[in-house]
């Protein structure tokens, strides 16, 4: 574990993303599929950073993607006449990160005192409550949402705007995924990771060891939330150029994130990538081959996988490579 080998597991991660990216660039007409897969991987990676590492299930996670989306949408729709050019996107990302961080701090201060099912239910409450606040108090246009395709075209020009939403937005999603992976590995290999490991295993014992559990939980929570904000800003706002509250505060996305993380293996670095790819590809093929029936097929498969392989794909892989030279690449 010591010295230079410490960060080796990033190699397969980067390789996986590079391959995916190359496939998207090389195979004609597969870019959006690749983008969708990257979105799932990034979603899994970002979610895993908190859920996988602390064992807390944030059922209202999608709220952070939602406010991130709003961060970008509000920025573009209000600053499009400012002649900022591409700078507007940077400001949008900044706004997304700031919005989601603020929300995470507020939620964290309240909900992180709870555990288990209580935490999960409280976070559902945050997501739903926040959505109804936006609709009820008519914040950010309320239920009318923001459609800013036109603003994006004003700010960047028609051609650039189109390239941004069909190509660069996806590259940003890749960026978020890689960032999440790097942060995950960095945390795993440093004190933060050990603190999180301790609190995941036994929170009381961790406290007694001198670990300020609240602080480390909040670190993981905010990191994860900020990444979600960036993901919302790129994968949803920039890509789709509109935002409606019911679309972005849809609790289904949290469930997808949980499925992805569990399929791959919670708390591992490569798990969310494996999970995201499997989830995305199988969903895609079912949507194509059996349109209208994919959920009917997919739901029992998920149950089967969870019951039969509870430790996830990377969990199994870790068991297989244990004691071989590949071990240091797999976490």
């Amino acid at each position, binding site marked *: 574990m010591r010295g230079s080998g410490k960060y080796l597991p990033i190699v397969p991660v980067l390789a996986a993303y590079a391959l995916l990216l190359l496939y998207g660039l090389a195979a004609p007409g597969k870019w959006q*599929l690749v983008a969708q897969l990257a979105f799932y991987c990034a979603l899994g990676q970002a979610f895993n950073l908190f859920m996988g590492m602390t064992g807390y299930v944030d059922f209202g996670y999608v709220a952070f993607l939602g406010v991130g989306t709003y961060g970008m949408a509000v920025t573009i729709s209000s600053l499009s006449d400012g002649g900022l050019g591409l700078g507007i996107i940077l400001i949008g990302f900044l706004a997304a990160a700031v919005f989601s961080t603020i929300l995470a701090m507020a939620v964290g201060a309240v909900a992180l005192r709870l555990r288990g099912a209580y935490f999960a239910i409280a976070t559902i409450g945050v997501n739903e409550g926040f959505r109804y606040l936006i609709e009820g108090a008519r914040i950010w246009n309320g239920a009318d*949402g923001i459609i800013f*395709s036109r603003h994006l075209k004003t700010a960047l020009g028609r051609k650039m705007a*189109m390239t941004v939403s069909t190509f660069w937005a996806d590259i940003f999603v890749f960026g978020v995924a890689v960032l999440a992976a790097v942060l995950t590995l960095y945390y795993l290999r440093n004190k933060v990771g050990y603190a999180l490991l301790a609190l995941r295993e036994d929170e009381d014992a961790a406290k007694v060891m001198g670990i300020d559990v609240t602080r480390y939980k909040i670190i993981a929570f905010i990191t994860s939330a900020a990444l979600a904000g960036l993901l919302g800003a790129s*994968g949803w706002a920039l890509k*789709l150029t509109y935002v409606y509250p019911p679309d972005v505060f849809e609790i289904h996305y949290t469930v997808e994130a949980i499925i992805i993380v569990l399929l791959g293996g919670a708390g591992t670095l490569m798990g969310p990538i494996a999970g995201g790819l499997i989830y995305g590809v199988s*969903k*895609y093929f079912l949507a194509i*081959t059996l*349109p209208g029936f994919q959920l009917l097929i997919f739901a029992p498969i998920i149950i089967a996988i969870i019951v039969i392989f509870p430790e996830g794909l990377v969990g199994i892989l870790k068991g297989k490579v244990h004691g071989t030279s590949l071990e240091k690449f797999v976490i």
Partner: protein
Amino acid sequence: MKRKVLFLSVFLLAAAGMVLPALPCHASDGEILIGHPACLSGSYAKAGEQAVGGIQAILDWVNNTRGGIAVEGRKASLVYKYYDCESKKESVTSLLERLITSDKVHFTFAPYSSGLTLAGAPIAEKYGMIYMDHGGASDKIFQQGFEYVVQTIGPGSLYHAGTLEMVKAIDPSAKKVALAYADDEFARSVMKGAEERAAELGFEIVFNRTYPAKVTDLTPLLSDLKASNPDVIIGGGHFEDGQLLNRQLADLGIQPKLLSLIAAATLPAFGEALGDLAEGVMGPSHWEYGVTFSEKGAKKLGKMWIGPNQEEFVALFKKAVGKDMIPDYHAAEAGAAVLALVLAVEKADSLDPDDVREALGDLEFMSFYGGWNIDETGKQVGHSMVDVQWQKGQRVIVWPVAAQTGKPLYPKPDFK
């Protein structure tokens, strides 16, 4: 070892069995492919099911009754390729791109709803693909500068114009209008239109409140509404909350002279669900089973006519979905969008999207669905709505007078 190989091959076979039908289908010569990331599951499953049936019905008519499409000197037939986007925005983009690039479709259809239509628009624009919007009613879609988005559904702001005119014509003493509707983009744009039209016609808005889209109990809102004692109640948003609104008005004994619900009252299942309580309830509709648009009528107006007549369409629809299901306006507008494409392709005599888009811009025609004409942004302006009323378990078109299949029942009978 042998065992392993055996099992592996069995797995591969099973996997292959699942994947094989997914191989892209390319258009052979003489086929025109229409691609559609449909909503067959998730929140818009009901509308998606209808839309797919409507498209298949019209396809059947075009290929078998009409004998295909004349383009570039040959007769081409239409082929429909649809996937299920699960009413999810991520899937819309990837499936749409697959349709465009792998399946090499010639034209694309948008999924249902304004949001999902917007989600796919950048992809369609990128590939310069015609993108037929049959379920996104938002006016805002057409303020974004998209070039290939073409609307068939009428814009939301016009839904209640006829209803209010009807009240004014029949009962000038009715003044007080209450609006109670779902808090979402669609219902809001409809109600904004209604509000403006009501002001123009001299009505007084005595109540104007929304409720969350997936509501299960409206009692508090309705007791508030009851206090304002309106003559006319206009509201709704979706099918479920429309039913709920109707039901709970009756429960609370609120007796307006007129009740009009968007997107709910016009569907066949509405009367089935509410029974006697639906009596006299109205709703604006893009199309209705019973609308009397005909080839003759079109000729009278000097408009081009295409497509099956209404009975034929209903029969084709039932055949397409394989169930005894009555098509509603979701099916009709999706079907009408296909007819628009057919005419535009023949007019342009080309499959090139830009030529066809230009032809669509110039196109004006009538079909079982009614008029069809778009402005330069792609927004539908040629289609007018009809007002439907439930009378003795049947849906009767009561407004405009020209389309009437029965006299309006006004004031509506009290809820029992």
